[in-house]
């Protein structure tokens, strides 16, 4: 039997069906937990965040709107929000340099084997947009976007003035957005 679509699976997950819930969790758990790890670093806290993300998705499933993004993105947005809340309650652990280096590699079209094998157009375009950023802007954007770090924390990590950190985040995200919009209008 072909796998259920994300939307269909979410619909059944919302109803609390046991098999659908198990399938839904299996489908997204590595992505959700992976993002939580990138953000909170601590494995135990990341597991708490990931569990809570699935519970929140279950409770809020009827409010999911497919016009605003995929189920995958929706799950990750929930996870990000919970991870950031958790980091505010517990002093954030330092970013793991090895993990961050691997993360930076993932978004470089030229260097990442995953990027070379990417078949999803949206992902490939996203990687390309990030790869065109100056390294300092890309790193600031990744620290904020995938590690949940505030501008003040990035200023400390990178040993740069707060205003510079804010500018790098703002400019980096604006360029990615413009790049996505440009590619969207080209298609």
């Amino acid at each position, binding site marked *: *039997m072909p796998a*259920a679509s994300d*939307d*269909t699976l979410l*619909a*059944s997950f*919302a*109803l*609390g*069906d*046991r098999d*659908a*819930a198990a399938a839904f*969790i299996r489908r997204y*758990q*590595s*992505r959700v*937990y*992976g*993002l939580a*790890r*990138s953000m909170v670093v601590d494995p135990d806290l990341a*597991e708490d965040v990931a*569990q809570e993300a*699935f*519970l929140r998705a*279950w*409770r809020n499933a*009827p409010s999911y*709107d*497919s016009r605003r*993004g995929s189920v*995958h*993105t929706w799950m*990750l947005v929930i996870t*990000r*929000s919970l991870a*950031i809340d958790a980091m505010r309650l517990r002093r954030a652990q330092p970013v793991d340099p090895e*993990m961050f280096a*691997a993360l930076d590699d*993932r*978004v470089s079209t030229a260097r990442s084997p995953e990027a070379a094998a990417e078949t999803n157009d*949206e992902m490939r375009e*996203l990687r390309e947009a*990030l790869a065109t950023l100056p390294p300092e802007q890309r790193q600031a*954007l*990744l620290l*904020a*976007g*995938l590690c*949940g*770090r*505030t*501008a003040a924390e990035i200023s400390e990590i990178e040993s740069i003035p707060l205003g510079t950190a*804010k500018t790098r*985040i*703002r400019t980096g*995200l604006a360029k*990615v*957005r413009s790049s996505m919009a440009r590619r969207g209008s080209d298609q």
Partner: protein
Amino acid sequence: MTCAELEGLAAELALGTVSGAERAGALDHLAGCVACRELVADLAQAADRLLLLAPAAEPPPGFESKVLARMGVAVPSRHSHRPRRRRVLAGVAAAALVAAMSAVGATWLSGGTAPAPEIRTALASDANGHWTCRAVVYGDKPTWLVVSLDRTDGLSAAFTVDALGVGRDTPVPVGSFSIDQGHGSLAIPVGLAAEDLRSVRVFDAGGRLRYEMTFPVT
């Protein structure tokens, strides 16, 4: 907070990293400024997509069971053997129906821990009186409609679905789905409130009405 100040903070708002008084001030400004709301929403599209690049990592063993337990759902047994037909039907829409019916019959009446979504179910039977086509509707903004078809003749075919609202004469096209070896389903948001849905109709590829499920009047 002014529009210029908000603009300087828009990226961080979109990324979710602003907190405290700064966030409160920004939200207060956004509540009354359409242009700034649009700016943040626009950047949030890019910020949200960035999340797709997060590395995957397997959670510790037992993760799935812990989540299911917190949902109040029994952990699936890896040794249970369900009938073949039921496995095929586990095409999730049918599972949704089972869940909906059991929720109505068990969870709601027993006051269980699961939430009680507004679920309405309607059925259509075949000539032998067996329930064959089912429609389940639940949720709000969007309202989800799940239609599942379960035939014993092993038919593979395509169907289209429309819905009629209470007090309306014009049906709303909903979507289409296919069945394979007698089983198939459709789950889709519909532009009607759950309580306003009167009936759901399923047509074959030739446009003939094959099933009509009428919801009980609420």
